[in-house]
């Protein structure tokens, strides 16, 4: 049997510079409207080992999804792997205190079986006004971290996700929500918005090509999680930055003049956001999670730093990019009548972002051209440029890993039919 203490004990006897052993005891419940009810109990292991060699420091990270195994052999493999993956030398900084963050919803962390809890979540899905087929997934986990010199941390966390297909007449939309708390799913609003959009889809025409101002509503803005804001998360990847593959560099404007506009863009990563879906006391590499700025008033301000990247830069690690908090703007949501053609994007079919350039392709599922709903068409954007100069709403939305303005206005875009 694999056992955390025996793995840590064996690592202590090896000549390793540092190590982190993470054990995740997980209960996963899945219930759907098609009659599936599932409960899973699993343990996942992650072992990170650093060894100092004459040529530098070698690192390895091993993940296992099994209960049966020989700890001696696992340690032997991890150390061998680290010894053959040597890079520049660096020294581990002393461990910082884990972030204090609430991650457990008492409504999900009950004594009930995990499938019963998932069933309870599915039952909160509103059913009126449409045909709805849903699936609820609930995760309860107990995370235990052991590191060198007796460092130990543990915490509990809950996570819920609901996926649903909402059908009205001849049209349907797929929606999903995730949150640490059952109440955070906000399913009533999700279904209400879906029903409104389905009514628009029923009368939607075809897109008309041409230039326009563009309003990105919350469902388009946050397509698949972080949505368009994911462009900034990639740019804050320290490894990519060190390779010189980022679009911009620290301490300079993200695009020329981004710091000179009336409401310059500010984005921070907050891994200690209470009940944030990407919040955690410690990162996967054992570093304490910290809040930091990615973009500060239009200027690239920080990177997600693992212990290695932080040490190479003589800084403190911060646990990487987590939940994104985007500063609100002052835009009321009203569009100037003189702005010309305005297209509002309600929902996307697909969003593709080039992680290096920030170039994006937005496939439109539902838009409103002036007052006319339409389905189809494509928008191509330089997201870094567009979002740096976008007008941000003064109303806030918190959904999944995002906390920020509910809509943004881009003054110039080209709709491709």
């Amino acid at each position, binding site marked *: 049997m694999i056992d955390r203490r025996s793995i840590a004990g064996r690592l202590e006897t090896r000549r390793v510079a540092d190590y982190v052993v993470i054990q995740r005891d997980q209960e996963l419940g899945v219930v759907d409207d098609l009659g599936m*009810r599932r409960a899973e109990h699993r343990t996942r292991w992650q072992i990170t080992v650093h060894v100092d060699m004459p040529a530098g420091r070698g690192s390895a990270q091993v993940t296992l999804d099994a209960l049966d195994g020989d700890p001696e052999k696992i340690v032997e493999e991890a150390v061998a792997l680290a010894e053959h*993956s040597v890079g520049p030398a660096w020294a581990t900084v002393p461990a910082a205190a884990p972030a204090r963050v609430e991650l457990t919803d008492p409504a999900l962390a009950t004594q009930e079986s995990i*499938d019963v809890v998932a069933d309870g979540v599915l039952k909160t899905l509103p059913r009126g006004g449409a045909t709805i087929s849903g699936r609820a997934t609930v995760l309860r986990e107990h995370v235990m971290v052991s590191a060198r010199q007796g460092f130990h941390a543990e915490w509990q966390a809950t996570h819920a996700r609901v996926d649903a297909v909402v059908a009205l007449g001849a049209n*349907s939309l797929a929606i999903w929500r995730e949150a640490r708390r059952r109440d955070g799913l906000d399913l009533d609003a999700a279904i209400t918005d879906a029903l409104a959009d389905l009514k628009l889809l029923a009368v939607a025409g075809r897109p008309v090509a041409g230039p326009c101002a563009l309003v990105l509503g919350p469902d388009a803005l946050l397509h698949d999680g972080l949505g368009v804001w994911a462009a900034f998360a990639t740019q804050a990847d320290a490894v990519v930055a060190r390779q010189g593959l980022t679009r911009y560099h620290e301490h300079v404007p993200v695009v020329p003049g981004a710091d000179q506009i009336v409401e310059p863009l500010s984005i921070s990563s907050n891994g200690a956001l209470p009940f944030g879906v990407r919040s955690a006391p410690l990162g996967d590499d054992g570093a304490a999670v910290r809040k930091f700025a990615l973009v500060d008033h239009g200027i690239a301000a920080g990177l997600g730093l693992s212990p290695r990247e932080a040490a190479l830069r003589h800084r403190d690690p911060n646990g990487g990019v987590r939940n994104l908090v985007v500063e609100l703007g002052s835009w009321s949501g009203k569009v100037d009548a003189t702005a010309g053609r305005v297209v509002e994007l309600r929902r996307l079919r697909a969003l593709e972002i080039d992680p290096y350039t920030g170039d994006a392709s937005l496939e439109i599922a539902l838009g409103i051209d002036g007052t006319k709903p339409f389905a*189809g068409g494509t928008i191509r954007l330089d997201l870094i440029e567009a979002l740096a100069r976008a007008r941000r709403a003064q109303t806030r939305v918190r959904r999944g890993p995002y906390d920020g303005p509910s809509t943004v206005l881009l003054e110039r875009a080209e709709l491709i039919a």
Partner: protein
Amino acid sequence: MSWNRREVLGGLGVASAQALLWAFGCSHPARPVRHALGEVSSEIRALLHEAVETLAGAGLTAHALAVSRLRSTAAIDVLGGGVAHARCDGVVLTVQQPKGTREQVTSALSRDGVMAAVRALATRSGTGRVDFGPAPRPARAPSPDPDTITDQALLDSVADIARRDTVQSSRIVYAAGMIDIDDSMLWSVAANRDLEQRLYRVRRSLTRVAWNGTRPIVSEVSRAWTGGINDQLFDDAEIAYAREVALALMTPTAFPDGEHALVLAPNVVAGVIDAAVRSLLTTTAALRPEVAQRLAVGATVASPVLTLVDDPTTAGAYGGFEFDDAGQLASTMPLLDKGHVVGRVARGRRPGHVGPIEPASSHLRLAPGTVKELPLDDGFWLEGTSQNAIVDPASDRVVIAVQRALEIKHGKRTGRVFADVEVVGDLGPLLASITHATTETQTVGIRDEVDGLPRWRSIEAPFLLGKGLVRSRRPR
């Protein structure tokens, strides 16, 4: 400027990050010990029998599925080689309920683990009598016997292929070869059913990357099958193709956006077929009213040239199997017959054999046509896909990202090659425009992951001639 190797390969879908983490830089750690399958098979079957009988004693009709899976990845790139192994065990107990099913899953493939799962399902104790039928034949082992294949042999098999690429170019900035093996042993036990199978899925790939202006051109050839590791090898033409495509100079002028006659290479066709089947031709996709209406059984949705079946019985198919994860024996499922919808994918498959069951294809076969060469006078030959095709089930909209468009004039290549184009429009008209298919087919194997669990499938497709709207993907 250099590319992160993991990103290059990860972007290609060549391997998961976990595999690459193991594969790159490491030497060859010892292979995780897995007991000889012949020895443990009878023990595991006895354990599953006991579980099903105990559940029967509680008045429940049960199916027990157990898997022991070992993944081995050997890769060699410009900086060296390495081998990785990962092991995953699991047992899924499924009981029928008046309205659906209830499942208990454990990663403990032991008596304690399985009986704990049984207790979670059974509200009362007792042992029923269940007739499991005849004992299964021992699962067939591939040749050569995997237990005799060393890590060094895996590396050697990758290195042998790399050595055959005798033409060197300083413009190739990254080169890699890989073999990726999923060795799954499965046991399925229920009333009148006692099955076992060994699925030894192998993927080989060869990657070359060269810069073209400010963008990298990534070229990959791959083969995927079920069987012995040497059942399929790259021929010299494939090795040369990988190199030459990476080195080809792309035409810098703008692509002429518009409707064109098109030849779709099998890898492009496979991407479209895979996305279309997953989005439109499964029993869960049919829950969407647009899909149910557009793709009702009997509806004409494509050209008469197109006949499609899902056939897990195809010998050596990467997505093939003897029985599915619901324990049903493999059988051919017709999906399209000369352009008419005749069925939907309903067979149950589980990611990693232990994930939640979902209807999924196994080995899709698009029937070959009747011509050896396609009669394209003017148009484009499209080959290579950089990402999954997008098929929107709500609207039928399709976006197919294509790596290269080769211009054809008067039946011959002009030499102009455009990078990064896309075919866009509605899927129905695109499929209806197909006029010819070749007798030659090629097979594409796909391995992707859901929640860290792998899904395997394959698609066999000919070259197709049709027409569609093609445009550049690059910003002007």
